[in-house]
């Protein structure tokens, strides 16, 4: 039912402050945007995998299974590079299949892009699976001073997501039963939008209105400030975790940057 996190405070990563953990993810994602070799992302991927396994108590299966979709993406990226990489004309050919020349540059670019995607996806996954959504929002309110109205709006939206998906399925079934044919004409998307939008929106607006009334009735926003049952705090352990993450990431990036591998260019 719940599409996202179940990660409780049972693991080391689960106990970390969500904002700090988020900062660690940013620290990991940053080098992915300006490093162009495949090895740095690969190493970060492995480190994240190990952290997820030993600090987040997530099994390898739990971590790798959702990434299966990116295997297809990897193949697509590889094919695109084999056919269209700008440097295919000048780069050394690694091997050929008939008239098709697979160049060093194509493999390099594809590998780098793919490992970067994988590393970033895994970091996000470990973050989401070790963070309870309400803790993330509380932490954003407490540490980053997010407006509490925005925070509760997001929580209500999150709660309603599966409800809307169920509504959509019901409307689809109901209209099919009435004899609505899902045609393929040019104007078809417009007519479908009209038929789905009205019932979906009426339902959504009515629900939103009811929730708003229920929240108002319990004095939401009636006082300028509210208290919190649980307060998200940043402990010394959190800072230590962030520092350690930054050191590890910096070590990987500089280590590979200084090695011949990082300086290797394919021109």
């Amino acid at each position, binding site marked *: *039912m*719940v599409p996202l996190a179940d990660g409780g405070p049972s693991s080391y990563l689960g106990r970390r402050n969500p904002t700090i953990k988020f900062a660690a993810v940013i620290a990991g994602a940053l080098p992915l945007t300006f490093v162009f070799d495949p090895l740095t992302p690969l190493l970060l991927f492995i480190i994240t995998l190990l952290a997820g396994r030993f600090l987040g108590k997530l099994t390898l299966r739990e971590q790798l299974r959702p990434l299966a979709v990116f295997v297809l993406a990897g193949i697509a990226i590889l094919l695109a590079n084999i056919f269209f990489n700008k440097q295919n004309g000048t780069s050394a050919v690694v091997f050929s299949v008939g008239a098709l020349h697979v160049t060093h540059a194509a493999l390099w670019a594809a590998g780098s892009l793919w490992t970067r995607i994988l590393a970033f996806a895994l970091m996000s996954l470990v973050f989401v699976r070790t963070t*309870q*959504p*309400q803790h993330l929002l509380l932490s954003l309110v407490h540490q980053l001073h997010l407006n509490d109205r925005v925070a*509760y709006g997001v*929580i*209500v939206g*999150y*709660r309603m997501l*599966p*409800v809307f998906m169920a*509504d959509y399925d*019901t*409307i689809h*079934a*109901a*209209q*099919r*039963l*009435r*004899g*609505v*044919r899902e045609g393929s004409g040019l104007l078809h998307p417009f*007519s479908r939008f009209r*038929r789905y939008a*009205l*019932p979906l929106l*009426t*339902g959504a607006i009515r*629900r939103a209105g*009811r*929730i708003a*009334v*229920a*929240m*108002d*009735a*319990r*004095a*939401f*926003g*009636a*006082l300028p*400030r*509210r*208290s*919190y*049952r*649980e*307060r998200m705090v940043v402990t010394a352990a959190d800072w230590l975790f962030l520092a350690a993450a930054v050191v590890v990431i910096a070590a990987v990036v500089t280590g590979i940057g200084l090695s011949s591998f990082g300086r290797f260019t394919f021109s």
Partner: protein
Amino acid sequence: MSAAGLSFTYSTRLRPALTDLSFDVSPGETVLVLGPSGSGKSTLTLCLDGLIPHLVEGDYAGDVTVAGLVVKDTPVSVLAGRTGLVFQDPDSQFCTLTVDDEIAFGLENLQAPPGEIEQAIDTALDVVRLSGLRGRPLAGLSGGEKQRVALAAVLAMGPRLLVLDEPSANLDPAATTELFEIVRSLAADRRHTILLIEHKLDEVINWVDSVLVLDGEGGLLFRGDPREAFYDRRADLSAIGVWRPQTVELVAGLQEAGWEVPGEPLGVTETAAALQATPRLTGRLAAAGPAKDDAGPGSAEAGPLIEVRDLSYTYRDGHPALDHVSLSLFRQDFLAIAGANGAGKTTLGSLLCGILSPPKDTVLLDGADAAGLPAWAVADKVGYVFQNPEHQFVAATVRGELVFSLDPRSRGRAGHLSSEQDRLVDGWLERLDLLKLAEANPFSLSQGQKRRLSVAAMLIRGCPVLILDEPTLGQDAVQSARLMEMMVEFQQAGGTVAMITHDMRIVADFASRVLVLGEGRVVYSGDPAGLFARPDVVEGARLALPAVAQVGLRLSEIAGLTGGLPARLLTARAFLAAAGRAADAETLRPAGEGGR
């Protein structure tokens, strides 16, 4: 609390929602609020919490006082601690993800210190008897548990006035009973003043102190004693479409037949005692003998219209829904499908009408395997009315809905129809009383009109079987009666009805057969009286005995009626038939008369 000359008109509407309402409620009193749909019951709840006039715009006149505070002069933050509201749909009142956070939410808004909040959560969960749910996510709870958490969330704020707006509407009968037991104990300790809006009257009539009835225009029709409301003002109540308790209907039916039922009994115990004390009634019932085989009007000679053979169904996500279900539906059957939420009722309905595709050779429509039929062929035989009528509207006008049903290619435009079809559409519009609204958007209709239009859009196609999913949910007495009238007409014209319902009153009064599902299995299949005669099955399937059946059983017990007799006293129709007319009893003079 009290209201004096309270009137309110929403700024977006012309007609007032409440007009010149004045009444008092004494501290600790429990008041049952009644009124037809659109009579302003929900508006009244918002007035008690200060959302009207502080947050909702409109014309406000008069005064409401809650716990000594004048609502219009008191900020919402103060009122929120005095008045607690619980609404119909638990999912549309939660704004957090866990039980603890939900209960804490109101106290946090009032800036309560964290230690105090934790204590309040414990106390509130204890009151609603859900201490075991501490720390659980809301998403995994049952409907009944959610509604009790909603009640706890309100109780935690320590209100003096508790307003419950149809809290049981979405619950199965067993969850309803559990919720009402809690409300009942809250009412009994007199620390809260309670306003209860509810139409499951038999469940609450024993313990409410008084009744407040709103008329169709949001004015006060009656305020006072429940006995007076349901007996002396009976005609007024039914004229505006307010439900009455089934036990009162039974007593009224007996009185009409000439029986002199003493007093004005309310609730099961009183009614059973009063019937026992009714001169000659128990003797007459004893003489009536065991039930004749009353299988209902379903006719078997033509072979079943729908046959379900050993149907098991598991959803793609591995969730098993049905387990070896078998069932035959004949012409003119009226089948009720009952069971707890999640027992597989809707899955069964979806498999019969082609929303889900059944496995091979499990569902036969007129002898043909439904698994091999194209969707339109299934739809020609079985119509399905969804719980929310809006979901199945496809056209921009009321007429268009009916036109679309006759010819989907028309896309709801009338030009495509033959003159014969046009007359058919006009005939239905007239029967629905919607001729004037024929060009209106279906979404703009009232709840009752939407429901009847969604049914008509299925019936106009002439399919022999109609399946309805909880069609009476949220309908008032008049709307519900008109819908059931449509169903009975359809059945008499040769149609077959299968109705998924929690409403035991409908099961008792209309169904010729009941199919009870429990965790995907058939736990009972047979006539309603047979079901009510087996309390173990009823309880196991999280259903509840209708009040009339309870009266029948109690009466059989205290009056020592034996044999097959109790089965004749389990539905109002059978009970009245068994009693016959009092004048006839006089001439019969049966021996061994019970009672006096």
